[in-house]
């Protein structure tokens, strides 16, 4: 870029030399100046806290009083903490319920919505509205819909002569309710990503298949799904990562209850850190979460690299 710039600028070689030098120095200076707000923010607000959190995870760090270095004690305690294993189990239950439901529903909706039919935009809008609604509002409204006596759902059931259960106060039902409401909240997002992928599939593939007499089902499984599989895989990983960080809807709908049946990892971290003020233990828990997420993120990166290559 520099040389290209300098050719028409200065036919004289001597000035060209000095210009190039000052240009580089200038580029270094302005470059760093331009990125400095972000870079400083990064060091002070991300890198620093990350290292401090790592150190804190090796300490007993109360709200008041001295922090004490205890080495790996927190991590040892975590692996012997029955509540921790319960919480990890709940988190994976949440992911295992949410991810397949979300992906299948999003894919189904995308297949229905990608066709150009009159009025189809209305449906797309309706399904997308919850995505931009506040999670807290969404959770509050669903908590109300699932309320035992006054809830809309139990009232509907009552019209059919069924006495509805106390959904969010039943340890067996609370988690499924949270999963379903979470799926409905975010399914529109994956749907939009899938629609974008479906629109990229070359039309001539379908034309060729039709000439060969392939049925719609066959076209779906042999053209559509293979063609959009990179997006499906990537979206699945992103949805898994997101689901491991679930918090807001749990906080509003169940507070981790009943009987700890919906207490998930982030909720447990929050509770230990900001309710019990056990900062050391909570930091160690946070690093366990970090490690789990890291595994899925590395998977995603590995895959994205291949995917980008595949696209080129």
């Amino acid at each position, binding site marked *: 870029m520099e040389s290209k710039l300098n050719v028409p600028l200065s036919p004289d070689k001597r000035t060209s030399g000095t210009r190039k030098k000052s240009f580089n120095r200038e580029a*270094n200076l302005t470059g760093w100046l331009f990125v400095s707000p972000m870079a400083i*923010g990064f060091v002070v607000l*991300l890198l620093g806290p990350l290292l401090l959190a790592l150190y804190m995870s090796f300490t007993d760090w109360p709200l008041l009083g001295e922090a004490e270095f205890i080495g790996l004690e927190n991590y040892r305690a975590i692996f012997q903490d029955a509540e921790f294993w319960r919480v990890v189990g709940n988190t994976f239950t949440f992911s295992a319920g949410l991810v397949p439901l979300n992906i299948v529903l999003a894919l189904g909706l995308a297949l229905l919505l990608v066709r150009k039919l009159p009025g189809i935009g209305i449906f797309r809008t309706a399904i997308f509205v919850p995505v931009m609604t506040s999670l807290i509002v969404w959770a509050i*409204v669903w908590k*109300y819909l699932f309320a035992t006596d006054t809830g809309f759902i139990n009232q509907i059931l009552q019209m059919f002569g069924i006495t509805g259960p106390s959904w969010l106060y039943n340890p067996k039902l609370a988690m499924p309710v949270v999963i379903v409401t979470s799926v409905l909240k975010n399914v529109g*997002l994956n749907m939009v990503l899938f629609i974008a992928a479906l629109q990229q599939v070359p039309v001539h593939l379908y034309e060729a298949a039709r000439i060969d007499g392939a049925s719609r089902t066959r076209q779906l499984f042999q053209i559509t799904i293979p063609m959009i599989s990179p997006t499906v895989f990537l979206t699945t990983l992103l949805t898994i990562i997101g689901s491991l960080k679930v918090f807001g809807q749990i906080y509003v709908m169940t507070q981790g209850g009943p009987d700890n049946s919906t207490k998930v990892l982030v909720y447990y971290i929050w509770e230990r*850190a900001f309710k019990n003020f056990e900062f050391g233990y909570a930091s160690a828990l946070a690093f366990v979460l970090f490690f789990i997420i890291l595994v899925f993120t590395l998977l995603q990166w590995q895959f994205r690299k291949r995917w980008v290559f595949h696209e080129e």
Partner: protein
Amino acid sequence: MKSNRHGLQAGKLLGIGGHYVALGAISLLMLVPFLWMLSTSLKEPAKIFVFPPEFIPSSIRLENYTEVLANTPFHLFYWNSLYIAILVTVGTVLFASIAGYAFARIPFRGRNIVFLVLLSTMMIPHEVTSIPMFLFMRMLGLINTHVPLIVLPIFGAGGIFGVFVMRQFFLGIPKELEEAAMIDGCSRWRIYWSIMLPLAKPAIATLTIFTFLTSWNEFYDPLIFINDREMMTLPLALSLFTDEVGTAWHHLMSASVMATLPLLIVFFFAQKQFIEGVSMTGLKD
């Protein structure tokens, strides 16, 4: 042959009918919470328990709204949410676009390494850094202020994501434009500010919507950093309503309507941009 074609057409119509039915059902499922929220927000408190449920309230009670406004500092929640989201958005767009421009176009030493390091830290869960950040803010006396709610997102994962988005966009702008300006003796700042930034309007619009919505809906940080009612943002205040008023659903629903409606209205006018903006969330994590 002819009847066969008719059969095909009937089947096609049936298929399209099924299409609409399936879409209608799921759309209704998405809209019921909003409709029920609106309906309850207009009901007499006694009517909430009526069986069978009334979808359209027989008498409308607007006091549900005025009572919330009178009994809680609702205007403050609103104002807090709004001005924080605006500052976060302006800050993010400004700093992310400056850095994004440098990463795309200024060949400075260490550029690629710095960019990669920035990008890789996006995966650090916020929960990890929030604990030391809480202690840091406490040390600075900034607990129960809006400073952490404004500063952390601008320079956190959201801001870094913004850098990535802006860089991608600037990489796509032809170099010739800049080169011409440089020959004319324009400084880098002038080039960024008067040439590149105006060209980046689509990227800025997308980033603006994404950042604004993320900030407007943010819950975890306000929960950690804010204690006083007057300082709360809408999501935090609403989440505490459930405990405070117990089963006063008519008030809770009118508050929810007030918190949701303005954004929904904006959404209906700029759907395409909103969907693009929010879809970026899917790419962020």
